[in-house]
């Protein structure tokens, strides 16, 4: 078994128009810049993929990574908890012009919906959002005297995530708080593609994402960090 792939180009080659794509990271921490840029490269070369539904906590920052993907016009819909950003204004402009769809989800509900998607749980109840606009249209049930909102699982065709060490079985570790949504997304996507700094052996006790959840591993030895790029005012391509 060898899930490693030789290139980013090959790693993202199978993502079609209209696909749903979970992208790891919280702000810049854990954002798989190289995978996203490879996807934008492919769009510039072939015109595809477009019309993507992207699941991420945010709407990107600056002009790299997810923000660049949105700027390129490849994203039809965003599912996230916090799309507000001072820079870029591209999401804001597209959103206010009605050119990009937004599904706003509380952060913990977003995490739990993704976990549920990966764990075969089609629906669950949470106190979160009860009595708010974000609960509108959702079933409410009372358990032990307290009202809860029914939320549904969230799955995707692909997940693009950034990890620290990966092995040929697809096992992964992460670095510090760059872990965030990535282990969940790996479970909830049909095809999970991980960029890793290091390909090497992992102690079975140290594995965070077991390989069963990962279909492809591609090495990016010194990955770019979104926050650092933005402080350098970098823009795609970079």
């Amino acid at each position, binding site marked *: 078994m060898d899930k490693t792939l030789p290139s980013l180009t090959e790693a993202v080659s199978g993502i079609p128009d209209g696909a749903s794509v979970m992208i790891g990271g*919280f*702000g810049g921490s854990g954002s798989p810049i190289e995978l996203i840029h490879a996807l934008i490269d492919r769009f510039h070369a072939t015109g595809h993929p477009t019309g993507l539904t992207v699941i991420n906590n945010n709407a990107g920052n600056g002009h790299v990574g997810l923000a660049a993907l949105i700027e390129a016009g490849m994203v039809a819909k965003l599912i996230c908890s*916090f799309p507000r950003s001072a820079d870029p204004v591209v999401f804001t402009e597209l959103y206010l012009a009605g050119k990009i769809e937004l599904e706003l989800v509380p952060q*913990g509900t977003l995490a739990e919906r993704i976990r549920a998607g990966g764990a075969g749980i089609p629906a669950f109840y949470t106190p979160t*959002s*009860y009595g708010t606009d974000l609960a509108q249209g959702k079933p409410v049930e009372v358990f032990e005297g307290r009202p809860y909102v029914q939320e549904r699982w969230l799955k995707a065709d692909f997940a693009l995530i950034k990890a620290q060490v990966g092995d040929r079985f697809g096992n992964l570790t992460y670095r*510090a*708080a760059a*872990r965030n949504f990535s282990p969940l997304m790996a479970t909830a996507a049909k095809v999970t593609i991980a960029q890793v700094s290091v390909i090497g052996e992992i102690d079975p006790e140290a594995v965070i994402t077991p390989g069963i959840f990962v279909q492809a591993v591609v090495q990016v030895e010194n990955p770019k960090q*979104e926050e650092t790029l933005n402080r350098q005012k970098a823009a795609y391509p970079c």
Partner: protein
Amino acid sequence: MLKLSNAQIAWRAAQDIADGAYVNLGIGFPEMVAKFQPPGREAIFHTENGILNFGESPEPGEEDWDLINAGKKAVTLKPGASFFHHADSFAMVRGGHLDVAILGAYQVSESGDLANWSTGPKGVPAVGGAMDLVHGAKRVAVITEHVTKDGKPKLLDRCTLPLTGVACVTRVYTSHAVIDIAGRFILREKLAGVSLEELQNMTGAKLHLDGPVLDLNVPEV
């Protein structure tokens, strides 16, 4: 008119955090509370993006941008820190494992409703983890100016802005007072230089008394 600075409001809120408490501080103003832990007490801070027991910001130039808090600020680690993914992080929140969450507010109602995520249909809505925090932590407190910039009450009989959560806030630390919420506003402390009548005039619902009202004494910080 006499009022507390933001730092002073944060200081006051910090005095109610017990030694060893697990605490989540909202993005922005509430983050300031961490600076004012009383001597001899050490709270353990949680951030939604997967760290327990993080510490202050590193020196400029020393930042590790994989080590950030929910406000995307670089932080450091304290002894006993741990990393975990977002589902585990919100299991801590939703599962009632946090002792206290301290959040900012646009409006708070006398029934404990909080509005702090949306100022209405204009612009891009963004909610983050606030709706999870208000129904998770054992105690949800708010720190806020007593009135808006144009002098309107933020403490109301009913919130007019979109709600973050229903009946969730139990204490409000304002620029002028400390108020408990138990189906009504119960005044606990107020600045000595502000009369009850003045305070009531700044407040959008009746202030109830239940026992003595202490002077809100806060040092210069």
